[in-house]
């Protein structure tokens, strides 16, 4: 067998299918944050997990060709700036910081609750990109080859 990066062929095949499902599920949890439990944090973690799934199955280089480190960093900053501008938008449009200033539709439908949907999207960008960036940064550190003798402790 040729030496390839990542895991075996079965894992790679299944990953192609499941990554998109996990991503879709994460987006569902983010968008329905005001109706069902979840919201930005949980959805962001799930979406980051879908990318981590890619890294684990295919190896670092292949996964990072899909989405580069600069893109991740940019998404994280964009998420932060978006959330901050929603808060400031409340200040500009209605004079109260963080006010929910978009129209609220009928209860329990998808487009009710004003700015909460956009807040959730901003949080998901920041948390998802942030978590994936942490994983990439930690996974990329090369360990020195021979650890110190007797370095194992209780």
């Amino acid at each position: 067998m040729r030496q390839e990066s990542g895991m075996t062929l079965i894992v790679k095949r299944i990953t192609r299918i499941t990554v998109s499902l996990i991503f879709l599920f994460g987006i569902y949890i983010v968008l329905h944050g005001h109706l069902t439990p979840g919201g930005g944090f949980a959805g962001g973690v799930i979406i980051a997990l879908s990318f981590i799934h890619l890294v684990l199955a295919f190896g670092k280089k292949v996964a990072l060709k899909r989405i580069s480190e600069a893109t991740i960093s940019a998404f994280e900053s964009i998420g932060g700036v978006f959330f901050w501008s929603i808060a400031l938008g409340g200040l500009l449009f209605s004079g109260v910081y963080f006010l929910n200033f978009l129209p609220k539709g009928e209860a329990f439908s998808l487009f009710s609750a004003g700015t909460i949907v956009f807040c959730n999207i901003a949080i998901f960008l920041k948390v998802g990109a942030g978590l994936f960036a942490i994983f990439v940064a930690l996974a990329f550190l090369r360990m020195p080859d021979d650890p110190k003798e007797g370095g194992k402790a209780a």
Partner: protein
Amino acid sequence: MIPLFVAIPLGAAFIIPLMSKVREGSARWIATGSALALLCLSVSSLWWVQKGALVYSVGGWKPPFGICMVLDNLTVLVLLVINLIGFLVLLYSLDYIKKYTAPSLYYTLFSLLLAGLNGLAVSGDLFNLFVFLEIASISSYALIAFGTEAEELEASFKYLVLGNVADLLILFAIGVLFGRASTLNMADLARSLQSISLTDPVLYATALFIVGFGLKTALVPFHAWLPDAHPAAPAPMSAMLSGVVIKVVGVYALTRVVFNVIGITPLISSVLMVLGIISMAAGVLLAIGQWDFKRLLAYHSISQIGYVVFGIGLGTPLGVAGGLFHLFNHSLFKSLLFLNSGAVEHATGTRDLRKLGGLCRTMPVTSATSLIASLSIAGVPPLCGFWSKLLIIMAAFQAGHTAGAVVCILTALVTLASFLKVQKFAFLRAAEGLCEGVREVPFFMLCAMVLLALLCIAAGVFFPPFLELVVKPAAQVVLEGRRYAGFVLGG
């Protein structure tokens, strides 16, 4: 207007990573600009609170349903400390950070630290206080490890672990208070705790708060992280930590919770006084044998914070005013001392006092400012340190705690001796081999140090109006105790 204190540095922290990809070097100006804006806002807030405390309901939800931000006189004093020292330290870092590899990360983390500290000061809600405390703490953990040398990482890890345990204890205590009163708004809690008498769960929460905030303030016996963490950080960050963070995150939060929410009792007051006295004595005695410049300054921080906690723990008007005035003064002269040590290290490459010498000829501005700062911390009139220590000692004698007052006086004498040693070894004797041919440090560093020295002198010479305008109203708020609830919730 109050949310701008949090919105401006947060916005700077989020925008800097984007802008520094577009244009190199824009990070420094965004950060410095936001710090300058914050400084102007906090000076003008002195006028806003003339008529009484300001309450701002975030999102339009009235307290106790929503989060509120409160600006009263104690907050104004703390905001002045944070933003003044923050701006001057940023000015200093414009030149100092050039020797590290990732300056834009430094400015991002520093803006986050400022956001966390400002949010802590204006917060009117216990959980909001906790969240901003965590933001400030995480930024400081990362900033201490900024140089990523071996010793900096070790120091940062020690601070991380102890700081995390402190945060967990604080969260536990917030949980106990929430279970007792079902609300987390500080004013509402004060009101509910008035109708319930000071029973066991609240005393347990107070003990946890004192331990948690004491760990953050580095009171003895919780001080073990400070002598490692403060020297290891880059010099502007040490100035910020020692001059601002341990005070805002520790002393201000402790004062707010213990005085305004739980209500001071003689038991809590004597615990604070005992902790203050032990910190004063232990800090100074441990500082005598130090030969590393920054480690010596770190130990002196422990002892001066002991003064502040002792003064506030006295609970009398003079004592609390003395403690708060000493908080302001200490941030001025301790930051100046750390910036001086950073300048010395920048020019000569070493912090060891035995290897330094003769710097008063080659670095005149640095040595003049360090002389002013050393005289301030030792309590020499008419500089600022003398007046605040005098207030605390007088308050201790008036309240009948002569033992504490005697410890204060002796500590001041030993502090004077210690700083005379620093001045002699680093600046006044003949130059050793390492120190020939060093030059003065770059412009922005000088600028920041000179401004701080001028402020030290001004706070000392012009102390009566400052005391009346800023410190006495702040002490008034502390001593009001639980009547704080009346101001915030409107009677």
